[in-house]
């Protein structure tokens, strides 16, 4: 059985884990000493060697991304941390920033130093007010302690860190929409090229990294690339945060090496809620095609999940038991995508509008088998046709649910309504029996 590897979450249970004192007690802010003593390129090389891949969903090698920034170009460089965690089911960056904001701040300092940025930004989702307050406090503490500002640790390196609070749009998790939003415009994805590494924030070379990716950097600096490489699988190195939610006995964040399976994670989480069985689950949030019982032993790393036909995404494991109507679940997700579509491109804007109406009809049992084929055809006209990946995400649950549960859709149509009791899938339905 794969052992959990708490690094980022190691001290979340301590009362003062979010303070600078709590962070220092476990070696906090020692990595910047080491990093600032290195050449910036050596830091980039270290991260490259570690095999760290982006934890925001795409899994792009972090060190390579840093290496794309043109050096000696005489331009200002920027580091932007994407803390706009909004994917349904994804819940790792928010608890991380709540419980241990300083590890992010330390990671920001090291990453900014590596890419020769003197300004860094954390773009945090606007709804999470408590996180905003803790981050703000952590940044103030870091400034007061001399970790930020002019001449950090007397090493001649300057860094200003700005916390920017978003206004609540899922699309701003898309990196170019995030940059537009950060510049004060409406968040809508930008045409690429130019890529952010060449012309990002204010048209300057910019690295955009996920919170967890940046927060992983101090541990790599402290413990070395080999230590990080000792965890995980061949191409997916290191530890990561898995968020389990839904019909599990003990939902939450589990920090484990990449490649752990849902079966193992369920062991740690106390299994599916009592008296029920797993029906379907998402490996990486609602935008990733759903899995079933058959994937309990699929290794949860980038390659393993992809080979099984889905995506590791943000490692957001939403678990649904047999009381859940898959049509209803898919409709809820689709309503989310319709609500969050930015409106820029036709397939996403109009497509999600249409899909919601079709799924509502299907859930209500209106239609025939031909409508399922029509739905698939419309989804085929949306997925892969849009400006950014939002519409692809909207298509995933529909395509995968029809693949695995076409019969259940038909059941709705045959009996003219939903065969499930919606209350049965709620947690309060079983609250008494737990």
């Amino acid at each position, binding site marked *: 059985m794969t052992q959990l590897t708490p690094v980022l979450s190691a001290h979340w249970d301590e009362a003062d884990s979010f303070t600078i004192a709590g962070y220092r007690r476990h070696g906090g802010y020692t990595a910047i000493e080491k990093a600032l003593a290195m050449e910036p390129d050596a830091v980039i090389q270290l991260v490259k060697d570690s095999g760290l891949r982006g934890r925001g969903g795409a899994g792009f090698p972090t060190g390579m991304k840093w290496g794309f920034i043109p050096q000696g170009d005489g331009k200002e460089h920027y580091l932007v941390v994407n803390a706009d965690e909004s994917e349904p089911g994804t819940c790792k960056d928010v608890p991380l920033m709540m419980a241990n904001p300083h590890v992010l701040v330390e990671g920001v300092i090291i990453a900014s130093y590596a890419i020769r940025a003197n300004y860094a930004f954390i773009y945090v989702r606007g709804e999470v007010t408590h996180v905003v307050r803790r981050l703000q406090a952590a940044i103030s503490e870091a400034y007061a302690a001399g970790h930020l500002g002019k001449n950090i640790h007397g090493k001649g390196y300057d860094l200003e860190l700005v916390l920017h609070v978003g206004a609540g749009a899922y699309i701003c998790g898309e990196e170019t929409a995030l940059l537009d939003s950060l510049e004060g415009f*409406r968040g809508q994805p930008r*045409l690429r090229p130019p890529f952010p590494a060449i012309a990002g924030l204010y048209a300057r070379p910019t690295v955009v990294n996920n919170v967890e990716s940046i927060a992983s950097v101090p541990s790599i600096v402290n413990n070395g690339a080999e230590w990080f490489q000792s965890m995980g699988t061949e191409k997916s190195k290191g530890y990561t945060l898995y968020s389990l939610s839904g019909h599990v006995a003990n939902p939450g964040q589990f920090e484990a090496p990449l490649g752990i399976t849902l079966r193992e994670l369920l062991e740690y989480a106390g299994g599916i809620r009592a008296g029920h069985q797993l029906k379907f689950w998402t490996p990486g949030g609602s935008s990733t095609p759903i899995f079933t019982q058959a994937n309990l032993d699929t290794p949860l790393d980038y390659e393993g999940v992809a080979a099984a036909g889905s995506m590791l995404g943000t490692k957001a494991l939403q678990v649904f038991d047999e009381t859940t109507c898959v049509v209803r679940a898919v409709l809820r997700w689709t309503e989310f995508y319709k609500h969050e579509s930015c409106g820029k491109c*036709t397939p996403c*804007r109009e497509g999600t509008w249409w899909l919601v109406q079709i799924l509502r009809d299907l859930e209500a049992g209106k239609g025939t088998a031909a409508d399922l084929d029509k739905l698939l055809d419309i989804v085929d*006209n949306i997925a892969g*046709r849009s400006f950014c990946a939002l519409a692809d995400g909207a298509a995933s649950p529909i395509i995968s649910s029809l693949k695995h549960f076409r019969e259940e859709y038909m059941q709705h149509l045959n009996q003219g309504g939903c065969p499930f009791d919606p209350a049965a899938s709620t947690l309060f339905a079983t609250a008494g029996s737990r």
Partner: protein
Amino acid sequence: MTPEQALVEVEMITCIIDGFEVTVPKGTLVIRAAEKLGIQIPRFCDHPLLSPAGACRQCLVDIEINGRAFPKPQASCTIPVETGMIVKTQLTSPVAEKAQKGIMELLLINHPLDCPVCDKGGECPLQNQAMSSGRGESRYEGVKRTFEKPVAISSQVLLDRERCVLCARCTRFSDQIAGDPFITLNERGALQQVGIYEKDPFESYYSGNTVQICPVGALTGASYRFRSRPFDLVSTPSACEHCASGCAMRTDVRRGKTLRRLAGEDAAVNEEWNCDKGRWAFKYISSKERIASPLVRGTDGELHEASWPEALAAAAAGLKGKRVGVLVGGRATVEDAYGYSKFARVALSTNDIDFRARAHSDEETSFLSAVALGLTTTYADIDRADKVVLLGFEPEDESPIVFLRIFKQVRKRSLPVLTVAAFASRGSKKMKATLLPVVAGNEAAVIAGISELTSRSVILVGERLSESVGALSAAKALADSTGAKLAWIPRRAGERGALDVGAISTLLPGGRPVSDPAARVDLAAAWGVDSLPTSSGRTTAQILAAAESKELDAVVIGGVDPLDISAQALGQLLNTFVLSLEISHSAVTAIADVVLPVAAVAEKSGTFLDWEGRARAFDKAIPDSLTRSDVRILSMLADEIGAAINLPTVAATAREIQSLDKWDGATVAFAPVSDGSAPKVSGSEAVLASHRLLLDLGTLQNGEANLAGTARSATANISQGRAATLGVAEGDLVQISTQRGSVTVPAHITEMDDSSVWIPRNSEGSQAIANLGNVSGEVVTVVKA
């Protein structure tokens, strides 16, 4: 590599589209390369003059590069061609075809399909491409998005949001081409919509272009909405009569009535754009004030309708053998101006002719005769310029397409712009121009201080520069000393052409100097007359003075508003015989002895020369019109007088102008004038400056209230220092007065010299000549109202 070489040596790229090889310049987008092969990829957001958006996704195609295929169809409007690229459009790729059909179906699910009542129906890219790339029947059974309709985003542009396909052409145009980002996309998802900030309506001089490039019927012009169907219109390529920018236009007429005008395409001039005045100011043609038949003043002192023979006889009687001056006006076509020019010399034996119905000077006469005709600067020189200098010229107000061309280069490559003006206008702020603030009268000294121009610099001189003594001389000296290219940009469409055909006292047609006997002989031979008048003629001001002092017996007047010239002009005409050739009743027709109705631009053919000297020929847009061009009437009148000018038609006139070679003999020398200076002022005194805003009380804008609704309102622009002295804040009323009268308008505090005050020259509540008796350089009193 020099910049010139860079323009020439563009790398060429060869790729394959639907099996055909095509070679295009590097950077060409796939959709454009396909066009070159005649392959039309459907599109909405794509527009060749706007930055790519990739928003509508209608132009998806399959692409592979060197054997590596993109996993998904790509928007061909966003991807430049590359060597080794193989593109498969809807013609050869089933995936691309299905993708396009799918997008079209999605675009239509929320579209109202109200084509039968939509202005765009019949000329609608959505309608057309739904036929070419859509499915016969929609599979959509859901609820369509609806909005309250229409929303007036300005007095002249209406928005029907449910028709909008959100291609962002209008918002990109306003931001990228006009520099007026007053409309943006608001909200998100299917509720995304074009909107304005409530305190800032869409008051752009170029807003009509958004109506024209809207690929659906979402934006409509208030004046045209529900007036016509495209297939009922007869379209005629035309040229704009409003300014010297030279826009190609299209005039759409139904049953003898002009219903709308659109920007025509001319890459060298207006690209695909025009200004709102050019687009919407045409109601004057069908005004109730139009003159239907000749009028002759009877013994009762009143004008009476008369037959043409009767009126021509009365006119001839007033002119034959008399001392006559000719005021052509600035709006004549080349052919009409040529008619006036020949009529003056042959039928009236005079050089007392001038096309300038505005402030002017002898220095300007010399500048026009000796310098302006030989200038060869073009729009392309602006594209290549390393710096643009504006002298007495506000392009956004006075030649809006020149503004667009400068702005394009400012946006593209930060072209530096320098402006010598009373204050930084909105246009010059958009161009990020460096302001050299000047007190009217001091222009020459400021111009003399300009440095760092090269042979790639362009100096644009407006007609207003003549209002400042020595300024034209200084501009010429600046061009001579630096090698910079010089251009003279009059405001009115006819002035450049009138100069070319000698509708001025110093020149005969083709630039022949009146003062040169050889030039006179040359022309007399061509015209088949014994001789031409030799005496040096009078300017507009001198003609009016001579009329008042009875040194002239009669004046022939084309389209002239006396209040454009001076406060006294009309009064100076009261003692002479006045023949007026006019389209509508005016201050001149009210005092004229004989009035001959003439054709408006839409009713005749002709040519304008734009500021470059480029010919802008146009045909009759209203074929059945009974009105005649000025030249035809002058020719009949010359016959009546007994001194034929033989110009029976516009076409014959054009041929005769063609047949006259340009003068290649000696030209007159420019007579520079030494610097003038602004009067000294103190206390509440200030030196007046003014210019005409694009949208104002100009007579050709009569009858178009929707257009007038977007005119910038009059302000008195004063410096911070003067505002403090007067104790006025932004928006407080101030009164500017002279002995003649006063103007009371809100103050606008801006960067300018403390001794200056600026007002619009001919706007509602602020008419410089009518109210103050002056346009610039005079001392006025400024007080808090």
